[in-house]
């Protein structure tokens, strides 16, 4: 679950865990409705943002807690705790207190605790938020691998889109308490359903205008400054409705071509980034139009203030709802 702060993703997670009551609708787990089951009977593991490791217990006792309240015998408990700790490479730390561990270690213990009782679902509420960048990336891969090897379903809340794209099979983009789109990461980036998703995931160029002609999947849009643009109709109304066209920067090519859309652009700014050059252009009156020029052999060298031709395919321009 991905979304900006206050978009309702944590509330939604809390409803799954049973700490918030859903006013409408039903929550199903393995086909069974769990709306009226109290949290402790749902069998859902949870990793909290601050880890919520019990400070008065050792790591081992923390892990044994869910097994103990299920009435498991001591020998079986110990075996499971050791297995869970080994799984997150924390085998030697069983007798330590949470306060004696680093952030990353606490994170692993929290993970092991959420998994130790073989839950049918694991919820994670921004579990890597408190870690530094390097450790966060490392833990992302680790959680992903653990997830793959255990084959357990994980619902993961984050506001970091790269984290969401790295770790997920499917991403639900939240805004204003609504799921804007539920799709695999690639689809989310390539084929956003609406302007919010297009804006929120990755970089995006916007051109706003009104639909002037529609034929099947393709629309012609009359832009605000009078230009014309052909685009793929995804989420726009009929003729006369306002629309916002979304074009990914890497889908725009410099130069004259036979593409559906070709227009003149004024170069406003160039930023050299090694593998590519980021160009800010003025296109159809939008001076925040970004184009990425790959730093390949024989690429066109632009100069600030120069006028150049750019083009893009109608398939790559998605006509979406106006914001």
């Amino acid at each position, binding site marked *: 679950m991905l979304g900006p702060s206050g978009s309702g993703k944590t509330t939604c997670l809390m409803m799954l*865990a*049973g*700490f918030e009551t859903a006013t409408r609708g039903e929550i199903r787990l393995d086909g069974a409705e769990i709306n009226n089951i*109290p*949290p*402790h*009977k*749902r*069998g*859902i*593991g*949870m990793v*909290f*943002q*601050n880890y*919520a490791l*019990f*400070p*008065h217990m050792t790591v081992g006792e923390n892990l044994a*807690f*869910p097994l103990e*309240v*299920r009435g498991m015998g001591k020998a079986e408990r110990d075996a499971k705790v050791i297995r869970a700790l080994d799984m997150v490479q924390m085998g030697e730390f069983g007798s330590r207190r949470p306060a004696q561990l680093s952030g990353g270690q606490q994170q692993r213990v929290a993970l092991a*605790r*959420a998994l130790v*009782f073989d839950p049918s679902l694991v*919820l994670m509420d921004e579990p890597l938020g408190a870690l530094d960048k390097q450790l966060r990336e490392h833990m992302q891969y680790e959680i992903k691998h653990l997830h793959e090897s255990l084959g357990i379903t994980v619902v993961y809340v984050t506001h970091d889109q790269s984290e969401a794209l790295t770790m997920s099979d499917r991403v639900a983009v939240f805004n204003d308490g609504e799921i804007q789109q539920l799709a695999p990461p690639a689809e989310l980036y390539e084929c956003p359903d609406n302007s919010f998703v297009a804006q929120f995931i990755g970089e995006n160029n916007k051109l706003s205008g009104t639909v002037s002609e529609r034929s099947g999947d393709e629309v012609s849009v009359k832009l605000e400054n009078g230009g014309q643009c052909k685009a793929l109709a995804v989420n726009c109304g009929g003729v006369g409705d306002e629309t916002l066209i979304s074009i990914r920067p890497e889908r725009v090519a410099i130069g004259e071509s036979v593409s559906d859309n070709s227009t003149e652009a004024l170069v406003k700014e160039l930023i050299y980034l090694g593998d590519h050059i980021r160009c800010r252009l003025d296109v159809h009156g939008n001076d925040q139009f970004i184009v990425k020029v790959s730093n390949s052999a024989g690429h066109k060298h632009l100069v600030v203030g120069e006028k150049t031709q750019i083009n893009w395919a109608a398939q790559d321009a998605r006509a979406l709802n106006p914001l």
Partner: protein
Amino acid sequence: MGKQMTDTANSLDNRPTQAEIDLTTVDGTPLKAALANAQKRARRRALFLVLPLLLFVLITFLAPIGQMLLRSVHNPSFSDHIPNLSVWFDENPAGTEPGEAAYEALVLDLRSMRADKTMGIAGTRINYDLPGSRSLFTSTARKAGALEPPFQEAVIATNEKWANPKLWQVMRGASSAYTVDFYLAALDRTRDVNGDIVAVDDDRKIYAANFLKTLFLAGLITFCCLILAFPVAHLLATLPLRQSNLLMIFVLLPFWTSLLVRTTSWIVLLQSQGVVNDTLVATGIVADESRIQMIYNQTGTIVAMIHILLPFMILPLYSVMRPINPSYVRAARSLGATSWTAFRRIYLPQTIPGMGAGGLLVFILGVGYYITPALVGGASGQLISNFIAFHMQKSLNWSLAAALATLLLLMVLLLYWLYDRLVGIDNLKLG
């Protein structure tokens, strides 16, 4: 990490480099010496700044308390005035029948007391252990000048109480300025004629039972405060800050009211013609002729003291509960614990520092509480501090008051030690 750094610093200190030895200040003194001098000056200034408070505490607090504690084992008011009797007591072991020599020494001492006008002081000391002895001393001292040998018959003729072996035993005990007799008295013990320690008569036993009652009542009050304060503190800790601040004012309101006013209002509420009884009678729960006695007895002491000490329990509990993250209980619930198990296993253990601090605070305050039991305690609700006050103000047996106070202090220290052993004093959080 920190240790490593200090280690490095130390090793640098131990191995001064050539440059360090050569470093001097402008006027040529070595840098190290100049630095040490500057630090010494700073320390002296710091000491100078705290000196007024130190002297104030020393003069007005520590010295009087030390002197008071000394009084519990040191009382020279009798021993200073009996030079002759002291000699006789030294020469004859305890249990010796006082003969002519003893009575002669007594008469000589009484005569000198009469001259110094000190028989009242000496008599009072004996009076502590044997009531009625003060008048015996003053009256006999007046007649001592006219007494003729043989003194034994002459003295006993003035008052036959002088033949009482108990009196001689008491005088022997008081003939030494240093004594543990006041502690014996504070524990309802005394010495028999032979100087052996025995329990006092049952009808004179007061203190030991009262110590136990004080401990029991303080414990009961602490327990009640804990039970009452825990939900309140929890509510304060979980409410949004605005509302909890408002409620906190209600908790603190009693602090801003005079103790006397609060106690008096309990009298108004609880007396037999008071609000509570009137309500009970009006609603027919209690008959008019059998109104419940709720004040001027133990119940009054308990109720009023719980009310007064409650904030001392709420505040430490609140300060411990506030930072407990609600996600701990949520985590426990998601891990399969029922709400009761989550409370018992996860929430409660984390509030122990607050319970310990509040409990210790309320218990220690309760054990030494004086004014409320004095006002609403009646006969059955008196605590040990009321007896201490009695001996300080009425009977003027300061040595016994000091002994009682010392025992109270020892009990509190013992409790503190016990708490440290069981919970750990570093686990205490007062605010």
